[in-house]
């Protein structure tokens, strides 16, 4: 019935992305080794990128791969290997009694509430956009997104530039060794 309404390739793409996302996410929260968790995170991020492409968000899919899988996960792996914390993880030990049961119940209530809320309100409500042209599939999206970012959201875009500079300076300040600074201060 569903296959008659919607094209089979679209369903296959959705199932593929859903499998990648869910299996990868379950891997992140369950594996012992943090390096394996980072690899599972890449799997989830690829699944989300597939879902982006399927919904004609081409530019965001590319950014998802380049920034998330290419930069953020590599940063995670760098820190994991830099600190050498890839062995001393205890997944089986539960620090607080009943913590996992409570977390599971809370999460199930959250997911159930979200899905019930969305289902009872017809999933997506609101009027379709009337300002500008309708969302064009394919390459047209990149142009549209660029226009939106550099006109409507120009101030926010400039703010993100400042945010990134501040984050870089903060990370360098946090991660540098203190001995080197005291020596330099003593010299100066």
């Amino acid at each position, binding site marked *: 019935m569903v296959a008659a309404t919607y094209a089979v390739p679209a369903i296959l793409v959705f199932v593929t992305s859903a499998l990648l996302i869910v299996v990868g996410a379950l891997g992140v929260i369950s594996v012992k080794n943090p390096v394996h968790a980072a690899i599972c995170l890449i799997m989830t991020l690829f699944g989300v990128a597939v*879902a982006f492409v399927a919904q004609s968000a081409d530019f965001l899919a590319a950014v998802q791969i380049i920034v*998330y899988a290419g930069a953020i996960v590599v940063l995670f792996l760098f*820190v994991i290997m830099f600190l050498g*914390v890839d062995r001393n993880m205890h997944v089986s030990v539960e620090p607080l009694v009943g913590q996992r049961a409570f977390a599971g119940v809370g999460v199930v209530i959250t*997911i159930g509430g979200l899905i019930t809320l969305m289902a009872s309100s017809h999933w*997506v409500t609101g009027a379709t*956009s009337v300002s500008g042209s309708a*969302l064009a599939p394919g390459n047209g999206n990149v142009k549209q997104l660029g226009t939106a970012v550099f006109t409507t959201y120009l101030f926010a875009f400039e703010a*993100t530039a400042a945010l990134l500079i501040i984050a870089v300076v903060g990370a360098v300040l946090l991660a540098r060794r203190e001995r080197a600074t005291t020596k330099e201060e003593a010299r100066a």
Partner: protein
Amino acid sequence: MNVPAAWYLVLAAVLFGIGAFGLLTRRSALIMFMCVELMLNAVNLTFVTFSRTLSDISGQASVFFVMVVAAAEVTVGLGIVVAVFRRRASTSVDELNELKG
């Protein structure tokens, strides 16, 4: 014809739930950061789905900014993890029970 938006929204809700469960139960600061990334990605997925359904580019612009903020958050967060690890030789959040360095 694409699959209905409801499928993607349910998938995003499940991904958000998995990330929240991991954040609540894992004790390693690194894994907790990864779970935050999972939750951010779930929200990004809903943004793109709404953007497609309502034919409005603003959703995708929001995802763009969420990605930038996530990158900044990971950078500073991992810097803090490295700084804490120098003092404590551990990334377990249970051992961080005082502000004194």
